[in-house]
């Protein structure tokens, strides 16, 4: 059945070449081939129905009907051999360590600026840099507790870090649900394949949140702060709260009273010790940040500064998501850890630099341009796929706001076969592993593989027509 599948001129995650699977995928390919295409389509449909019935859905922002869709799920898993995974894991841990040092430094001593590694102007012009966070000392010195780092591979199979997501990365619920659905739909595939389980994530997450609770509290109250049911990731908020057995709260459930953060219960107010927040920095506290925020809690930052509540991720971490700051991560690794970066960055052109801007404007048809402070595939131009007028419009935007944009070469992302209309088609993928920074750094084995199901598309975001796959870290075949 894979006989007609052509990996083409791409790096294929499952095949070396037509009809020749990679060693770590050999057994998987054999097992899938034992199932008929009709049966596969049927089970794929079953899996999707199950997700819809369970309400594993996300909302689309641009659609004000509040329409819910499921994140399309493809049954062919993506396989990562464990030796490669160990290398990735080391690289991710290194990156989180460096970023955490960076955050602590720029909000306190700012030695990286004083030593001339990054200019003050670069830091202070980042919209994610929050002045009210200067001087903050978060519990246990941890700023980024939960990170989702986007990784991609190029045509030769080389890994790169594409983006850091330190504010409130989402997607981990799909990792857990996809695995559950795969086990339900294809139990036979799991047999004898040593697949690393992913289910430890909620326990690890809870442990790292409890780690932050102020000293001397026997049974700390941990809550997940969500913007509410209309948020695109609401399913995940509810899922994680349920899996950890913690309370899911909205801003209106919380109040600062008597110097502490409290939640409103049917039996009066109750103290909250740790917040896992799933709302952006700007919305956390209308008294400190955006005054029009209805999602946060007035006075929260004061309580936080007093050390009477912990917040994960710490406010201010958003600066590390800035795509211009991203280009300095290799320098941070050298500066703080005295090491060389393990997983490289994608080469990045800063439009703010007039020379580099010139290059970008001259090569718009070859580059991907991204807004430095956007995510979710919004505010982005894929040069080779864009029309002339689209490129011209973007060029104007870049000239008007050079700090707002960076450009990268268009990577030819690696592909994995996906089952579309009864046949296997190669589709581009990325990978978002989830990293927890608690007592130790924990990397959930695998992560979310997002797949561009639109033919030829390089954009994998759920808001832009992407889907997902289960990701298997497996012991390499002997």
């Amino acid at each position, binding site marked *: 059945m894979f006989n007609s599948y052509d990996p083409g001129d791409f790096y294929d995650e499952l095949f070396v070449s037509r009809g020749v699977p990679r060693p770590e995928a050999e057994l998987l390919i054999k097992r899938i081939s034992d199932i008929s295409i009709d049966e596969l389509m049927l089970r794929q449909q079953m899996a999707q129905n199950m997700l819809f*019935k369970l309400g594993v859905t996300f909302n689309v922002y641009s659609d004000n009907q509040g329409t819910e869709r499921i994140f399309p799920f493809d049954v062919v898993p993506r396989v990562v051999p464990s030796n490669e995974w160990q290398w990735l894991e080391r690289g991710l841990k290194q990156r989180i360590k460096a970023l955490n040092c960076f955050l602590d430094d720029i909000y306190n001593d700012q030695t990286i600026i004083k030593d001339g590694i990054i200019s003050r102007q670069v830091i202070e012009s980042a919209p994610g840099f929050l002045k009210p966070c200067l001087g903050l000392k978060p519990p246990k010195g941890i700023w980024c507790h939960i990170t989702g780092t986007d990784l991609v591979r190029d045509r030769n199979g080389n890994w790169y870090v594409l983006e850091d997501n330190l504010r409130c990365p989402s997607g981990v619920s799909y990792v857990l649900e996809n695995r559950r659905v795969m086990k339900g739909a294809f139990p036979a595939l799991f047999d004898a394949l040593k697949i690393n389980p992913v289910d430890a994530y909620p326990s690890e997450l809870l442990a790292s949140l409890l780690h932050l609770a102020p000293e001397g509290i026997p049974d700390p109250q941990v809550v997940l702060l969500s913007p509410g*049911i209309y948020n695109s990731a609401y399913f995940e908020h*509810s899922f994680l709260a*349920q899996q950890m057995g913690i309370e*899911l709260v909205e801003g209106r459930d919380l109040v600062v009273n008597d110097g502490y953060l409290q939640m409103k*219960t*049917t039996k*009066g107010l109750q103290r909250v010790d740790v917040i896992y927040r799933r709302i952006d920095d700007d919305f956390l506290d209308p008294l400190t940040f955006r005054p029009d925020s209805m999602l946060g809690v007035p006075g929260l930052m004061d309580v936080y500064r007093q050390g009477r509540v912990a917040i994960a991720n710490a406010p201010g971490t958003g600066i590390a998501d800035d795509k211009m700051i991203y280009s300095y991560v290799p320098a941070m690794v050298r500066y703080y850890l005295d090491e060389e970066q393990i997983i490289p960055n994608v080469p990045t052109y800063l439009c703010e630099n007039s020379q580099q801007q010139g290059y970008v404007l001259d090569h718009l048809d070859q580059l991907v341009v991204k807004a430095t402070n956007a995510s979710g595939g919004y505010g982005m131009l894929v040069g080779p796929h864009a029309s002339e007028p689209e490129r011209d419009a973007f060029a104007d935007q870049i000239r008007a706001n050079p700090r707002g944009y960076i450009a990268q070469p268009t990577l030819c992302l690696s592909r994995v076969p996906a089952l579309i209309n009864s046949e296997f088609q190669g589709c581009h993928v990325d990978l978002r592993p989830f990293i927890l920074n608690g007592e130790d750094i924990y990397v959930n084995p695998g992560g979310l593989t997002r797949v561009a199901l639109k033919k030829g598309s390089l954009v994998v975001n759920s808001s832009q027509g992407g889907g997902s796959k289960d990701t298997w870290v497996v012991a390499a075949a002997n």
Partner: protein
Amino acid sequence: MPTLHPYPSPFTPHPSPSMLSRVADSIYWINRYVERAENVSRFVEVNLHLLLDTPVGTMQQWEPLVVTTGDQDIFKERYGEPTAENVLKFLTFDAEYPSSIRSCVKSARENARSVREIISSEMWEQLNEFYLMVEAAAQSNEIAELYAFYPEVKIASHLFAGVMEATMSHNEGWHFGRLGRFLERADKTARILDVKYFILLPTVVAVGSPLDNLQWIALLRSASAYEMYRKCQRTINPSGVVDFLVLHPEFPRSIRCCILQAEQSLNKITGSPVGSWRLSSERSLGKLRSQLEYITLEEIFQTGLHEFLDGLQDDLNHVGSAITENFFGLAVSA
């Protein structure tokens, strides 16, 4: 009367796990909305059945249905004439009328979505399917299909109550849900009885006529009460029906029975011993319960049935606002 604060001090630690006010509020309203959707189905069904029995030449009466909702002004403004089609549309699929079946089920599901980590997955799934079923039905324009639709709504509502009974811990949240369901049901049984008040008989002489009798039977059926009524009363007459639907202590849709059950749940929530009260909601519900325990049929008819039912609905509204004030709308002086 001074308003009592629910607890001596909001800052003393509580040994029993408490729940978020918003969550309690949502579970309470999920149940009210589901029960409301079921009862709107019942209203409409009783009328559909009455029509089938109405002698040729008599006017079809749809206006009473709108009147009992209390929303006749909204209806007039949006639809004008109370024709069968207009009334059915208004009560069944109107997405902008908050008490239509469609809106109720949608609100129930929205509330469930906001507490799905608290309720059981089975409850959420059942409600999600209920919602998908109503949305699919709303796309069809065939009035004839509605005859099958209303029973389906009733069954979905029973399923939800059953699933909740069997899969959710009988904890504080569960009692809030039950409280909501029984208060809503008491209110709606009162309104179903009131439908009869607004349905006009051709002449005064017709009171007690076969037609009158048929209408009472249809009314009993709409409350699923006909069979149970027969087991304890031989003849069908107004006082018998009122006695059964208002004062019967065991029939699960009688107003007294609903109030009794609601009070049990409220007692579980507050921990107050039966027969005592600390909160305004406990007092007003207890008062209502004892009124229903000691009132006689004669007294009801002396007051006038319609006036009595009106007063009862006011009392129920009062209980509802007291519950909101005591549990959901915690006032905090910052």
